[in-house]
């Protein structure tokens, strides 16, 4: 089942980079994607179907200075599934997610302990290159933040250029990423216009395209729809459903309906601790912890 049968494939399939981020991270880990075992038959035109990796957190702790914001979390994000993280403001959802691609440590005074395993590779191992981690694990932020000095095209190409992809490869990769983000039809004739000229929802999909362009294996989304209107939100949610065929998705959300709509699994966090995790349906209908029940029924938070 080679994905090459599809007309719009470019995003990652031909590139050797799709094979294994673990190898690139200088670690004798297992290859993460095995073309032979990947790809269910439903290969849609715009998306390459491949296996994303599994992500596991082992006793993950995160600190700001001496304040412990994430207090020893064990959690598993299954491959090619959408896992939603819900919980009240300040419970450490974003912090936890930012530990996965090691963005947490960019904040002065912040540090993390424990393990984050990408398949079998510990991302906090001292021989792991943080830059390789971030190439393998893309991130979409709360507010759409296209680079203001760049055109639509350059925004999507920025990740490729920043990571040293040759000029000739840019065009097809940019197009594939924009198609992957469901934005191509809308911006095909305005690629050279400034990225900040797009609408809010388009800007956010532009940011998703920017993340997809570097062909990540995992996509972290930190409240990606909280600044968007319902229609734009719907488009992003539909996009998430398609994207999970090629990446493993972790989405932080304040919107419980959104979690119910997009997530295969949902995790509920409170005060830096993992209260409960399970299939989304179970969390919302038959939670085992009373605090989860109170939260999802709107009694607090």
């Amino acid at each position: 089942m080679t994905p090459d049968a599809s007309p719009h494939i470019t995003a990652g399939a031909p590139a050797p980079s799709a094979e294994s981020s673990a190898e690139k991270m200088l670690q004798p880990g297992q290859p993460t994607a095995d073309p032979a075992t990947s790809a269910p038959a439903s290969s849609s035109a715009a998306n390459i179907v491949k296996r994303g990796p599994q992500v596991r957190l082992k006793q993950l702790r995160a600190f700001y200075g001496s304040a412990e914001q994430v207090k020893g979390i064990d959690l598993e994000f299954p491959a090619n599934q959408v896992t939603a993280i819900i919980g009240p403001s300040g419970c450490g959802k974003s912090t936890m997610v930012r530990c996965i691609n090691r963005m947490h440590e960019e904040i002065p005074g912040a540090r993390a302990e424990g393990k984050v395993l990408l398949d079998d590779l510990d991302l906090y191992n001292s021989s792991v290159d943080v830059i390789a981690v971030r190439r393998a694990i893309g991130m979409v932020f709360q507010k759409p933040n296209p680079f203001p000095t760049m055109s639509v095209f350059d925004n999507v190409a920025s990740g490729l250029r920043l990571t040293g992809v040759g000029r000739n490869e840019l065009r097809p990769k940019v197009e594939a990423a924009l198609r992957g983000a469901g934005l191509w039809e809308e911006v095909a004739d305005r690629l050279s216009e400034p990225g900040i000229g797009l609408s809010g929802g388009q800007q956010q999909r532009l940011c998703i395209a920017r993340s997809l362009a570097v062909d990540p294996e995992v996509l972290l989304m930190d409240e990606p729809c909280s600044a968007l209107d319902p229609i734009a939100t719907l488009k992003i949610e539909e996009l998430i459903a398609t994207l999970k065929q090629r990446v493993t998705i972790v989405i932080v959300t304040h919107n419980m309906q959104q979690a119910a709509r997009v997530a295969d699994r949902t995790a509920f966090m409170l005060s830096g601790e993992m209260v409960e995790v399970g299939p989304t349906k179970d969390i919302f209908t038959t939670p085992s912890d009373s605090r989860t029940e109170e939260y999802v029924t709107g009694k607090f938070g």
Partner: protein
Amino acid sequence: MSAQGATPPATPNRIERFAVSPRRRRSDKLARSLVLAGTVIALIPLVLVIYYLLHEGLKAWSPHFFTTDPTGNTFFKNSDIGGIRSAMLGTIEMVALASAIAVPVGIGVAVWLVEYGKQHWFAQLVRFFVDVLTGVPSIVFGLFIYIVLIIGTGSTFAGYKGSLALALLMLPVVTRSAEVVLLLVPGALRESALALGAARWKVIFRIVLPTALSGMITGVLLAIARAAGETAPLLFTAGATNKTSSNLGEFMNSLPVQIYNDVISPTQSVVNRAWGAALTLVVLILILNLVARLVSRRSRLA
């Protein structure tokens, strides 16, 4: 109030309650006229300066004025006093060298302060010294270079020594303005670039600096304009001379020093040359400003 929620007629009482009081109207008028008066007062000297510059300066302008050096022959009424070529080129050469030194160093310091130093004690110390340097009178920079590079080495005036004095003068201005602009670049942009797997230096060169470019150009222009107009640091570093030189190791003339020497002359034609030189200086800075604006506008969309 009817149950249907029909609007009740406005009672006289209500109209009164919502009316602007005469007192507020008066104080509003007073405040507006004070602000307007302040603006007009501030504009008067500005307009007068431009008027006199044009009125007096244009008298001296001619092709001859720009293409010849001063002759130094100013004692006889009808003798040829020459133009300002050496001063114009000297200013351009020295300011260009000063900018070539101060702009990269200043922006480098600002990048370090914003991206790496942050609140570290050493960064705070650097900020303090930059602030102190901003307030140092320009003649002190001239003195410093004079003592170190002229007395200290037992040599003479030279264009590059003038450039160094000007560079010292520009450095804190460039640093401070660049730092302010770099701080304005949203942290979210740095984060998203880092999250794409970009190395820190690439984030700085490809995202942060281009985003801050137009603001930094404003700061750099401010510094250049200030340096180009300075007389004091050049008086005893670059000296004054009549001849045009492209060798920065020699004495070098400059527009401010030319103006300084000419304006105290008893000969009217020499005083006119000072006005002409002053107008030239202003026009040069104006041209530089326009060019930089065009460049920065083009690069924003590229």
